[in-house]
């Protein structure tokens, strides 16, 4: 067999180095120890004991268990037992909101999807949205009102506050302060106004650790107004990202990913795609999608931007503010990069966009906005809206609050949501100063770090239990409506604030309705309100694009203050980066097991964070993966293990935020390392001056990176746009093999529905939303860090990440791998009990009740997509976690193999509906969970023998290839080769 033309992809540094350990790992089917019991018993002892206990107890369990049927007393009109219902709601997230449609079984929400009507999701979702359902059922959520750690009732707090309130009203709130999470909610904004009217002398601060604060500040610098950018990446041919991970961790990422992927979609009508340049210090999924990724320390991104602006001016763009601004010192490589981009941008004027990330300072955002304006991009690929009902995070306000507390002015502090004690800048020393406040009222979902410091803790409801509202990034007014009564009691944030302001208790529904009476002013309120509840949003309520006037003089002044020479980071003066975690975000999801076990898209680490550094930096420091190092920065220290990531900028290390929590709950406590311990208010995202020393200790990190390696065959096939134009079949020709002949008589598979899937690697961004969507839909358990280390993770769809090329400047690519549903399935041929067999529609079915757990099938699977239940992971589920399970899917027990089913429960539901309506299942009616979640619409699924179906069209594409197709296993899942669109001016790395 001859693999011609394929790039040499490698999955980890060990593989590239081809060490003895790696070879051994590769050749063991199940990683070392996978077949040993977890405790000290040997298998032989265990079998002996089992035999004895079976003999003793074997026949006592024969009595039929009695099962109860509990009907309603009065049946609700709209509930049909056995049929799921769907309701629209929204998930407030930072200064925006994601529109959702939530599936509910007899009043029990089980699955979250995006709302197809909502501009923030258009039916897709990300991992956070998918995993939010598990947060609802978190058994660690707070259940009781606490006063100084003792259980009290809500009425006790009512009495307490009514007394307090009158004294605060008397002194106009002079000693009262509120610290809330940022929000963009009409109701909360109204209550905030009422609060400030009632207590005009009070302090109000909004703070969250990861926000768009610097973006808002940048627009204020550039135009004098606070504006929020809304991107339309499908309108851009050239996209330049300056440290903006707009596909995953920035605001509005679901809509961004969809539009970006649309701009890269190749079909017969359109053989063209956008080109993405990314400059960043640490690899992100956006960097992985880039046609050119520039490794550059975060502090030098501004230099790249200034150089780009000068270059644009030099090429004739009218940029008055660049006059007299010195060219920053960049390396020759960086300069040629900048020049090439500038030429591309000039060519694509008004069809281009420059994006700056939230981690970058305001001045960069102002400059980028001015460049976009000069290039004529504003109003096309990016527009700016004036956000309504917004309480933006403001670190200065937090500092002001902190100072007021220190001065002794504040006697009552109300903390509404968030986890400020855990995540506020360490230099403000909030935990210490809270001790000076007489009364701290904390309202939150968990008895967390902040609740520990509070005199009163009030349980807050989850958004799926709440009435509320929010505005999406583009200003669309969205409603939050409850799917279930609060599981643990509690009040919504709006109910609390309403009570704090007025001293009267009002139901959340009434509060929200009151706000919306103003929003829906005019006739027919009831009718329009019902429409809003049905759709989840108010139609045509997106904010209009603002007219932009760039203040050139201000930008010029700002730029002249920028240093033109940048002190180079070096091994003794490293740059520290605080990165947003793609799974924990800022730490709010720390108690969510699905997200803890979701492999990081870049590092493939689970259940931990690490200090990420380039191979060169690690080499010079003399450290390797898992070595614990001590980071010292501004006199503060943190011990944390090392993880080497090719593609990280040299002398720049990244720390993911959101780990190392002490009071998150049973799942999140003590997982990972708390990077907030080094984070200060003047350098929230990066700074130089970090020193690293070795401690000599090592720490075990759990990664899914090496598991199931496929030995360097061309699994991800990719080429450039030019190659594709010359030879559209390049991907299919990468592997030459003899004619494929089967030993068996082939089954025809030529009638009825024949299910198949196509995954477009050109669209896939590697984010992992599919993995969590599948976990939620298919009741997949989490297994914990020690089991992941043994290779026992249960994800039915994993996302493989490959590096390619030079170890210092690699490119990255992702490939989701679910069960391929081979027509000649190797797993079926070795199962001794026919527990995995084909059905007539081409599904490779897994019959749990037949499986005896030999694991032969997994041994014989070339894709390594079968998952074995080594333990009864679901047995000890808390009763609330059991409520999150999908009733349409079997909950598996110990000793059973499982794998992707192509969501057979959804196929059967679609079939049932179609049969009842006496028609065929239509294309697009049936979506698998991964397909539905995918923000980039990379996955198509359907009937492959219906010529008009989306999936048949995808499979007819010349880029279509089968993973390991040369084995003649005939997978039903196929891939569309990935294309890159490099700039010919820049030599290939």
């Amino acid at each position, binding site marked *: 067999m001859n693999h011609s033309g394929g790039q040499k992809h490698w999955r980890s540094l060990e593989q590239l180095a081809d060490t003895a350990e790696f070879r051994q790992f590769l050749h063991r089917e199940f990683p070392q120890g996978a077949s040993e019991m977890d405790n000290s018993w040997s298998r032989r002892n265990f079998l002996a004991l089992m035999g004895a206990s079976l003999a003793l107890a074997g026949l006592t369990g024969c009595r*039929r268990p*009695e*099962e*109860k*049927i*509990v*009907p*309603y*007393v*009065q*049946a609700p009109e709209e509930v*049909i*037992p*056995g*049929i799921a219902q769907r309701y629209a709601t929204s998930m407030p997230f930072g200064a925006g909101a994601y529109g959702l449609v939530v599936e509910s079984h007899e009043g029990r929400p089980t699955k979250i999807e995006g709302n197809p009507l909502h501009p923030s999701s258009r039916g897709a979702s990300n991992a956070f949205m998918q995993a939010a359902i598990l947060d609802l059922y978190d058994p660690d959520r707070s259940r009781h009102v606490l006063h100084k750690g003792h259980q009290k009732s809500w009425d006790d707090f009512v009495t307490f506050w009514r007394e307090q309130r009158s004294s605060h009203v008397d002194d106009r709130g002079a000693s009262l302060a509120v610290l809330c999470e940022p929000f963009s909610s009409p109701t909360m904004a109204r209550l905030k106004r009422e609060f400030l009217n009632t207590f005009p002398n009070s302090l109000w601060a909004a703070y969250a650790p990861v926000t768009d604060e610097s973006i808002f500040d940048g627009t204020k610098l550039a135009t004098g107004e606070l504006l929020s950018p809304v991107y339309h990446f499908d309108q851009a041919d050239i996209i330049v990202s300056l440290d903006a991970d707009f596909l995953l961790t920035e605001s509005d990422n679901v809509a961004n990913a969809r539009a970006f992927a649309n701009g890269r979609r190749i079909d017969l009508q359109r053989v063209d795609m956008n080109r993405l340049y990314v400059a960043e210090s640490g690899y992100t999924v956006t960097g992985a999608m880039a046609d050119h990724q520039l490794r550059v320390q975060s502090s030098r991104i501004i230099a790249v931007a200034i150089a780009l602006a000068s270059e644009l001016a030099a090429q004739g763009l009218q940029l008055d503010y660049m006059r007299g601004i010195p060219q920053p010192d960049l390396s020759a490589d960086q300069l040629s990069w900048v020049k090439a981009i500038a030429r591309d941008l000039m060519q694509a004027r008004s069809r281009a966009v420059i994006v700056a990330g939230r981690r970058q300072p305001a001045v960069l955002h102002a400059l980028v906005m001015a460049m976009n304006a000069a290039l004529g991009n504003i109003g096309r690929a990016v527009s700016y809206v004036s956000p309504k009902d917004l309480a933006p995070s403001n670190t200065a306000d937090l500092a002001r609050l902190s100072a007021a507390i220190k001065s002794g002015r504040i006697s009552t502090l109300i903390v509404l949501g968030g986890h400020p004690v855990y995540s506020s800048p360490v230099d403000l020393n909030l935990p210490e100063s809270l001790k000076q406040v007489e009364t701290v009222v904390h309202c939150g979902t968990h008895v967390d770090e902040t609740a520990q410091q509070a005199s009163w803790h009030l349980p807050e409801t989850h958004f799926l239990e709440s009435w509320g509202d929010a505005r999406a990034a583009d200003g669309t007014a969205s409603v939050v409506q409850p799917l279930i009564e609060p599981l643990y009691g509690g009040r919504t944030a709006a109910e609390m604030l309403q009570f704090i302001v007025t001293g009267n208790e009002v139901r959340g529904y009434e509060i929200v309705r009151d706000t919306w009476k103003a929003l829906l002013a005019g006739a027919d309120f009831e009718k329009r309100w019902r429409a809003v509840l049905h759709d989840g949003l108010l139609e045509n309520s997106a904010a209009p694009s603002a007219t932009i006037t760039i203040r050139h003089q201000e930008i010029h002044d700002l730029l002249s203050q920028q240093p033109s020479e940048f002190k180079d980071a070096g091994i003794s003066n490293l740059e520290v980066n605080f990165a947003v975690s793609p799974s924990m975000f800022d730490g709010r999801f720390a108690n969510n097991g699905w997200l803890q076990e979701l492999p990081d898209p870049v590092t493939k680490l689970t259940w931990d964070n690490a200090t990420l550094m380039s191979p060169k930096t690690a080499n010079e420091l003399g450290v390797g993966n898992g070595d614990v190092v001590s980071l010292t920065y501004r006199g503060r220290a943190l011990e944390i293990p090392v993880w080497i990531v090719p593609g990280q900028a040299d002398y720049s290390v990244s720390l993911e935020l959101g780990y190392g929590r002490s009071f998150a709950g049973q799942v999140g406590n003590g997982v990972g390392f708390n990077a907030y311990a080094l984070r200060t208010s003047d350098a929230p995202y990066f700074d130089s001056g970090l020193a690293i020393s070795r401690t000599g200790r090592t720490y075990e990190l759990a990664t899914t990176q090496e598991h199931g390696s496929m030995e360097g065959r061309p699994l991800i096939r990719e080429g450039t746009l030019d190659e594709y134009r010359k030879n559209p079949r390049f991907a299919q020709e990468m592997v030459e093999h003899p004619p494929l002949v089967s030993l068996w008589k082939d089954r025809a598979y030529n009638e*009825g529905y024949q299910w198949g899937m196509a995954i477009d690697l050109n669209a896939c961004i590697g984010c992992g939303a599919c993995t969590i969507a599948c976990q939620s839909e298919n009741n997949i358990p989490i297994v914990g860090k020690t089991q992941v280390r043994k290779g026992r993770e249960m994800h039915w769809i994993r996302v493989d990440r490959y590096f390619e090329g030079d170890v210092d400047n690699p490119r990255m690519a992702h490939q989701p791998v679910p069960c391929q549903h081979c027509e000649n399935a190797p797993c079926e041929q070795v199962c001794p009990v026919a527990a995995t*067999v*084909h*059905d*007539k*529609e081409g*599904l490779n*079915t897994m*019959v*749990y*009740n037949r499986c005896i757990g030999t694991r032969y099938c997994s041994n014989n699977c070339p894709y390594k997509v079968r998952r074995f239940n080594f333990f009864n992971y679901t047995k000890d589920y808390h009763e609330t976690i059991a409520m999150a399970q999908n009733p*349409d*899917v*079997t*909950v598996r027990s110990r000793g059973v193999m499982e794998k992707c*089913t192509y969501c*057979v*429960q959804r*196929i*059967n539901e679609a079939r*049932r509906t179609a*049969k*009842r309506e006496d028609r065929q299942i239509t294309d697009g009616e049936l979506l698998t969970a991964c397909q539905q979640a995918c923000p980039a619409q990379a996955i198509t699924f359907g009937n492959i023998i219906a010529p008009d179906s989306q999936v048949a069209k995808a499979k007819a594409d010349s880029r279509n290839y089968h993973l390991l197709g040369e084995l003649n296993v005939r997978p039903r899942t196929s891939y569309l080769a990935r294309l890159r669109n490099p700039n010919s001016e820049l030599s290939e790395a």
Partner: protein
Amino acid sequence: MPQTFPRWTNALPAIVGVGGSVLVAASALAFWYYGSPRYTDVGYRPKQPVPYSHKLHAGDLGIDCRYCHTTVEVSPSASVPPTQTCMNCHKLILPESERLLPVRESWASGRPIQWTRVHKLPDYVYFDHSAHVTRGIGCVSCHGNIAEMEVVAQQQPLNMGWCLDCHRNPDPHLRPLQEITNMKWVPPQDQAQFAALSKKDWRLSPPVDCSGCHR
């Protein structure tokens, strides 16, 4: 040399051989019979919290099954009626009856009546009532003649082989949709013709693959 074993032991291998095989065969047969759902499950007749008589309601009074089991045509679950359904009539009929006390208590307190499930399939089996009753399989085919049962008992084994018998050859069980709940319907002379016709009309293809019922 004296014989170590007495003479009768010469027959031992034969006895052990024959006896052993008989024993093995007998246990296999016993397990096959006593272990099968036909023996263990058929006839299961648990005591219910309310002495409700299907014979009286569905048989003598002739109330259609779907008056109470309302969702049988649209949902996988036929659903046991809410207390409200009982009270529709029993507010006026026998409002003082001793036997109806649990129903009135449930109605007053809002606590549901806890019925005991009779027809139980394992959790890994996904049966759909609506798929069957809208495609000509009558209630009586699986549940037996409920209209003659004072207390409901299981009539059929409900094991996989029994399901598959019908899925492989549904012809004798198909009936016109208007006869779905009729407990006394007998197949006409031309049943084969009717079955062939309706199989075509309904595009009937009862699944015999695992994925039809297991997920």
